[in-house]
């Protein structure tokens, strides 16, 4: 039987780094049942033995209500892990001990990993690992994950003969202790379960009756202390953590460090720096991404598509096969230039710790849209590509914010839509008209944000965000992180892209596309004032937005679009194309991140919005 170990710890303590270094790249991402929280599991081979290692999401406490906290709680209590590997940031030992104390109470085998020992030392903190180990009754491993130092010792403990169980008992208020004891006795609960019950925290192993009797005791304690047990227990744990931390830490005089935060988090020059950073990233990704995408498409056309046509297969295989190649081209054409480049930049921002500063500064502006500071990231990303933008909504703390951000992201013009706007409107009508499309979209996004912030269900929490330490990013890890996200994108979007392309190919072969065209022509002309072939081009835009533009040229038989469509028709075409239905890759990611139902709702909403706005415009143009 293979041993199973899980990594737990606060956010940004280097957990994922340890995970990546131990497991290498052969990692499987799975969804924990009933949630959208991704769990990463990998197999580690060490000294001819194998064990599995799971990276649980970073959290501050086991008692919270967020999806991540629920997941970790359930996993630790009911899961089948053989060993909990608790990763701590040595520099912030006291704060990190809080979660460790909670985890220790579960009384499952545990080892403590004191990570970032180098940082702690340079901050003048010397930690007595042996004293800490005696306190908890489990081994303490001192590591520096960025250098890979001592990580193999973790593996030693996982496959070792002894699995030590922590012995530490935090000192609780005596009413709490008495209540916990009686809950344990009458309902046959473990220590940890009785604490969760008193804190009114749901857990699958706690029956409603247990929760009820715990609630009765809790309200009694609350009356006496004028403070809820949740708060008392929290304060008790913090006091224990403080006492332990003071006991095992020796402070030495520290060197004065330069305080970049006095620049980065002030209104001035912080906000100009923020704007320059964001616009700069956007510009680089846009230019470089566009160039790379063109290169990838042309290389694949020359070496894959053209040779394939040259094979002279039967018409059916030729159509379907080229559809598959086109899908591959769209997928890779987005994945590498845009998703990968963006994630390189985002990983740099994340690893330097700048991202949290940006979120702090942007908090105010985001409030109007029903979002908090963290919402800045998806919105900025969305100008490049909706796919990484939606993937980044998972950093948002509540589902409510994730939904609002996803809707706004699908509306904002990504680079492919910018190609449509510049290729059709700017070149055939004029720059003013092109900007007016941006104007319309921005107004719609703003209004939508205001409306959504009022009607979206779910509680609104203010931003409580730990500022990550400012540090120099390590190129190797930046690239690796970006790479993992690209592969995740390919994994999500590729199957859908392939399937839908094959179907389109078959339809085309069977002549359904022409049938659709003649069927839609009267409707399209009446509603949008667009001929049938233009509407078919719009449908191709679902595969990849700029394909609408390319298909229009192919179906119209000319690149001089002004000769086949009037200015008002081109304008309507571009506007509808920009607004309606996100592309297949976006829909795939939406389904993954916020669920099938919400994804379907967004798709239907944008479809309706695009068509009705197009129809309205057609109506207005007819009147003028």
């Amino acid at each position, binding site marked *: 039987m293979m041993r199973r170990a899980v990594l737990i710890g606060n956010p940004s303590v280097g957990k994922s780094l340890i995970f990546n270094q131990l497991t290498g790249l052969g990692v499987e991402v799975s969804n924990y049942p009933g949630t959208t929280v991704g769990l990463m599991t990998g197999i580690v081979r060490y000294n001819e033995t194998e064990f599995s290692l799971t990276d649980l999401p970073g959290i*501050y*406490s086991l*008692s*919270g*209500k967020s999806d991540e906290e629920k997941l970790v709680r359930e996993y630790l209590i009911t899961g089948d892990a053989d060993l909990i590997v608790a990763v701590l940031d040595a*520099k*912030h030992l*006291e*704060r990190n001990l*809080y*979660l460790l104390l909670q985890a220790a109470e579960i009384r499952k085998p545990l080892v403590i990993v004191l990570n970032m020992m180098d940082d702690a030392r340079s901050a*003048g903190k010397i930690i007595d690992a042996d004293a800490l180990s005696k306190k908890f009754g489990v081994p303490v491993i001192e590591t520096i994950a960025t250098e890979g130092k001592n990580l193999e010792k973790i593996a030693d403990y996982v496959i070792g003969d002894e699995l030590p169980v922590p012995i530490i008992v935090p000192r609780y208020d005596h009413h709490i202790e008495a209540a916990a004891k009686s809950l344990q006795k009458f309902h046959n609960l473990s220590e940890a379960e009785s604490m969760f019950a008193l804190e009114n925290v749901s857990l699958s192993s706690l029956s409603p009756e247990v929760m009820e009797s715990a609630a009765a005791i809790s309200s009694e304690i609350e009356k006496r*202390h*004028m*403070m*809820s047990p*949740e*708060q008392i227990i*929290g*304060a008790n744990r*913090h006091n224990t953590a403080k006492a332990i931390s003071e006991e095992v830490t020796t*402070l*030495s*005089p*520290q060197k*004065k460090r330069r305080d970049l*935060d006095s620049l980065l*988090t*002030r*209104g001035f020059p912080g906000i100009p720096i923020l704007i320059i950073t964001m616009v700069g990233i956007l510009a680089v990704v846009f230019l470089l991404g566009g160039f790379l995408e063109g290169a990838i498409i042309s290389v694949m056309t020359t070496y894959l598509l053209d040779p394939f046509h040259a094979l002279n297969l039967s018409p059916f295989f030729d159509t379907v096969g080229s559809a598959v190649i086109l899908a591959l081209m769209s997928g890779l054409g987005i994945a590498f230039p845009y998703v990968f480049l963006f994630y390189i930049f985002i990983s740099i921002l994340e690893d330097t710790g700048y991202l*949290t500063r940006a*979120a*702090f*500064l942007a*908090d*105010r502006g985001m*409030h109007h849209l029903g979002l*908090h*500071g963290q919402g800045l990231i998806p919105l900025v990303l969305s100008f490049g590509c909706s796919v990484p933008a939606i993937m980044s909504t998972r950093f948002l703390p509540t589902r409510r914010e994730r939904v609002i951000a996803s809707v706004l992201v699908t509306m904002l013009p990504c680079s492919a839509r910018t190609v449509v706007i510049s290729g059709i409107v700017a070149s055939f009508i004029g720059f003013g008209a092109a900007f007016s499309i941006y104007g319309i979209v921005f107004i719609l996004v703003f209004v939508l944000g205001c409306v959504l912030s009022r009607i979206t269900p779910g*509680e609104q*929490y*203010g*931003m*409580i*965000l*730990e*500022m990550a330490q400012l540090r120099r990013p390590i190129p190797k890890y930046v690239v690796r992180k970006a790479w993992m996200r690209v592969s995740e994108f390919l994994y999500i979007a590729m199957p859908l892209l392939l399937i839908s392309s094959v179907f389109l190919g078959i339809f085309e072969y069977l002549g359904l596309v022409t049938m659709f065209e003649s069927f839609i022509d009267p409707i399209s002309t009446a509603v949008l004032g667009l001929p049938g072939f233009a509407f078919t081009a719009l449908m191709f835009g679902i595969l990849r937005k700029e394909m609408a533009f390319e298909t229009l040229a192919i179906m119209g038989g000319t690149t001089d679009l002004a000769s086949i469509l009037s200015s008002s028709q081109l304008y309507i075409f571009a506007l509808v194309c920009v607004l309606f239905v996100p592309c297949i890759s976006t829909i795939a990611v939406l389904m993954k991140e916020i669920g099938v139902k919400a994804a379907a709702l967004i798709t239907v909403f944008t479809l309706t919005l695009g068509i009705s706005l197009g129809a309205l415009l057609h109506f207005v143009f007819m009147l003028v």
Partner: protein
Amino acid sequence: MTFELSEDILEAILNTGKETVKVSNLEDLAHGDTEGLSKAVTCLKDKGYLTESGDGLSLTDKGTVKAAQVARKHAVLTSFLTEVLGTEPDHASKEACLMEHSVSSETIERLDTFLEKRGPRHKTGRGRPWGRHAAHMEMSSSQEHEGHARLTKRNPIVSLSECEEGSLLHVSMIRCFGKHSRLIDLGVIPGELITLRRKLDNNAVVITVKGCDIALSPEVAENIMVERCNTQ
């Protein structure tokens, strides 16, 4: 003598509310004994309470905690002398300055509890309940006292959004607690000392708790009730 002087130095630096303080500004404390002063400063640096840079002396985290403890003793003793014994405020403050060095932490806690038990008129909010109702009660009682210098010298309890950048604060309570339970996880609990690092003009703040910087939205900051950690 050196021990008392050391505590006075820490307290004085904390009270200035500045990051760094020049040694020359501390000379009053030593009553002309410059040699004793420099000896005490050296000793404090050795123990890791102070650091010295080009612009002067500054408190380390450890030093700040120590200084706040002394400041708290001072505040509790002054309250006791003025509220219970009716001593003149100025005189009480001087007396407290002498007593704060020898009194034990336990006595201070008991004295504090004693002051709080003396009835609702004298409530000052330390270690008080966190409920919304209680918050209002305390706000009004501390406002009531503002005109009565004889009754309390404690600082009023205000929301975090009303404090200035750089101030050292003592968390008194958290309103609308249910919405902000993450604050407990991060260590923002009553009794904790926090520093207000940064405040934007929309009242979004960054605080330092347990050595970590945490950014808070304005609506979260206004629900954290704090007491400024300095004495007159």
